[in-house]
């Protein structure tokens, strides 16, 4: 799975003359965006991110046209498996124009028709034109009953955003939307930097809906700057090293509800709101880990902050 899949052609620029001769290096540095000194700097950051993901493959193939982005990307991420149009089965909701490109709400839904006994196995969120397109992959536990999951993401440029659902028969279905936003990955970190650091690792849990309902909704929040590696320190103007929550596991009692593997696109203070089927357990538990290896654990009564 291409969590760290990097679009080496997307995020950096050099002077146009340097791209006339498409050497191997020239290809790597070609860019779809206007050339300019600020993009050259982004390039440095991009390479730093590239090093972070050096264990995964880098694609230095010729730059695709924007409309061609998805096909090769999907082919890489899902290793050539066929993707079916998920209309009526899978949906994705985002605002058409982001209010804040660093905090763009996204909701993914899977609705199986009556009598369809398949379960949701995984959801992959892909922000096609972000420097690291795979924002997150969620894998669901047996009988977790998660059919809706919402989070908030950074969106770096006008882009298609895809969600791909894998069902228990291993079939893949996609849905997509289009978002107008820019600069989300490099937007200055932390509106309130001191508070972010002081509260690192703090968690919050809420439950919504009637306790008697067959399906309930819960929210898990983690205080973390989730630095993308593309943000600059506003005083030194140096890049802040990437450090983000890349693994998360959520349990209802002893049953895994879902696990997540994430890249740099999840917003500061990662926030997940999801439906689930109560299994009678009295506790919820979350474990998260960031790319520096710091671990965060919390446990709450299943009725915490009930709405």
């Amino acid at each position, binding site marked *: 799975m291409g969590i760290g899949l990097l679009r080496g052609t997307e995020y950096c620029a050099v002077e146009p003359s340097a791209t006339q001769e498409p050497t191997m290096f020239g290809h790597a540095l070609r860019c779809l965006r206007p050339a300019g000194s600020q993009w050259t700097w982004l390039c440095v950051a991009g390479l730093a991110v590239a090093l972070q993901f050096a264990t995964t493959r880098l694609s230095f193939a010729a730059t695709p046209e924007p409309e061609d982005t998805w096909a090769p990307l999907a082919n890489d991420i899902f290793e050539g498996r066929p993707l079916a149009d998920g209309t009526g089965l899978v949906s994705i*909701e985002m*605002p058409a124009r982001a*209010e*804040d490109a660093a*905090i763009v*709400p996204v*909701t993914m839904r899977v609705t199986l028709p009556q009598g369809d006994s398949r379960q949701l196995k995984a959801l992959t969120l892909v922000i096609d034109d972000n420097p690291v397109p795979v924002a997150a992959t969620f894998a669901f536990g047996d009988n977790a009953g998660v059919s809706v999951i*919402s989070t*908030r993401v950074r969106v770096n440029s006008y882009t298609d955003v895809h969600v791909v659902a894998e069902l228990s028969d291993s079939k893949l279905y996609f849905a997509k939307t289009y978002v107008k936003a820019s600069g989300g990955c490099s937007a200055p970190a*932390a*509106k*309130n*930097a*001191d*508070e972010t650091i002081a*509260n690192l690792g*703090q968690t*919050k849990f*809420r439950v*919504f809906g009637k306790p008697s309902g067959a399906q309930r*909704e819960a929210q898990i*929040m983690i*205080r973390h700057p989730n630095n993308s590696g593309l943000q600059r320190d*506003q005083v030194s103007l140096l890049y802040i090293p990437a450090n983000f929550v890349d693994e998360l596991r959520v349990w209802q009692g002893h049953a895994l509800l879902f696990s997540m593997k994430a890249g740099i696109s999840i917003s500061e*203070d990662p*926030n997940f*709101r999801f439906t689930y089927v109560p299994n009678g357990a009295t506790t919820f538990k979350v474990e998260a880990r960031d790319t520096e290896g710091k671990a965060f654990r919390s446990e709450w009564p299943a009725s915490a902050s009930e*709405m």
Partner: protein
Amino acid sequence: MADVKIVPPTQVVEREARIDLGDRVLLLQAWRASHTDNDLTVLDETTGTLFAGDLVFLRHLPVLDGSLKGWLAVIDELAAIPAGRVVPGHGPVAGWPAALEDERTYLQRLAQHVRGLIKRGETIGAASQSVAESERTRWELFDESNARNATAAYSELEWE
């Protein structure tokens, strides 16, 4: 333009600093996260003129890039500054501290409305669509920043 020189700042103001210009002393004050997390005001004590930067918006809808709770608290402290007039970050020179009232009203409504949505379990997306509508006609550029302010306010206040 060849004669233009950029002079980078050399002095850090932790809380307060004074610059003596000879016949005039300027009081520099740094504030906790409010409009942004790096707001500075300059008070000319001789004429009672406060240069508030973007801690004070008039006519132009306030833009929240720091902390809503911080900004509301800072407004109370700003009001105690003994100035006669303010040069705001946006809008005309105005009397002090009356110039704070419109901004305070908007930010209070924003906070109150967003807290209500969070309490009822509404989403951050819902907040960006409906918050502080009653303030719309009182400000310029309302549509450019109100929904963004609501998003920022929600992601701050949901941690209360």
